[in-house]
């Protein structure tokens, strides 16, 4: 034993602090850490306590979404939908063992990861304090979506879901540019 006090997963705690408005950040994170250490850890054990903590962090996402700008909310919704589509595609590919599925799963998972990153777009902004990350993210999304769209259009077998996901990726990129263009990044500023 190192003798150190047990703490919740560090990444989840950082994520929580990024999600919360300034005036509640410290108190809410403190409450959850207290419950984790004094309540959940002795009662449920480390693994289940960590899972409990992550679930609590996730429960703040609707609050985080509600605090954002209308454009930010649309972006979040589109991102979540694209993520769901990409995960579904990966799952179905595995299930059906479609020829060439390994490559497709890789592409789908890459898309899913990028979508997940755009869901956290405002946190990226908070973390790096710069608009260039958002511009770069938008360019990557539009490029990836456009490339997937044209490749799919030229392929022998037209895949409806690749079509939908590619369009959603482009839409996400455009929405990111719109949030930047409207207020110079102000709509994706840290919550306060």
């Amino acid at each position, binding site marked *: 034993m190192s003798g150190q*006090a047990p703490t919740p997963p560090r990444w989840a705690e950082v994520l929580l602090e990024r999600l919360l408005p300034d005036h509640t950040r410290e*108190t809410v994170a*403190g*409450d*959850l850490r*207290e419950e984790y250490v*004094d*309540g959940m850890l002795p009662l449920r054990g480390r693994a289940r306590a960590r899972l409990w903590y992550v679930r609590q962090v996730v429960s*703040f*996402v609707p609050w985080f979404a509600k605090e954002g700008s209308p454009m930010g909310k649309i972006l979040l919704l589109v991102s979540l939908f694209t993520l769901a589509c990409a995960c579904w595609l990966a799952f179905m590919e595995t299930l059906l063992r479609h020829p060439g599925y390994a490559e497709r799963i890789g592409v789908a998972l890459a898309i899913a990861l990028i979508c997940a990153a755009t869901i956290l777009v405002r946190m990226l902004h908070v973390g790096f304090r710069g608009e260039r990350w958002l511009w770069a993210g938008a360019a990557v999304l539009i490029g990836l979506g456009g490339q997937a769209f044209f490749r799919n259009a030229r392929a022998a077998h037209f895949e409806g879901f690749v079509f939908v996901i590619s369009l959603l990726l482009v839409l996400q990129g455009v929405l990111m540019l719109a949030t930047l263009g409207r207020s110079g990044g102000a709509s994706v500023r840290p919550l306060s």
Partner: protein
Amino acid sequence: MSELLGTFEQSVLLSIFSLGTDAYGRAILSRVQATLQREVAAGAVYATLERLEARGLVRSRLEAGTAVRGGRARRYYALAAEGQRALGDTRRALTAMWKNVQLPTQGRS
């Protein structure tokens, strides 16, 4: 008459009331879970507290944190006069609504 409160809002306000001077986030979360007899997401409780405070139904104050919290402050909540009024109004409205209502016994129409 103030706007009527939802079930969850009532539960949070009543928890604050019953906890008295010990009503901080973690204690409120535990009390709400015990009252509703189910696991409640922390996000739902804190979002409700935020909304109730913005509506002037509760007020809060900060106090120093403990070591187990990593030194983070605690926010204690208390029922404001407007919150007590809202609870009273909601209770009266529910009582009036249920007056003379006799539901059929289980499974019968």
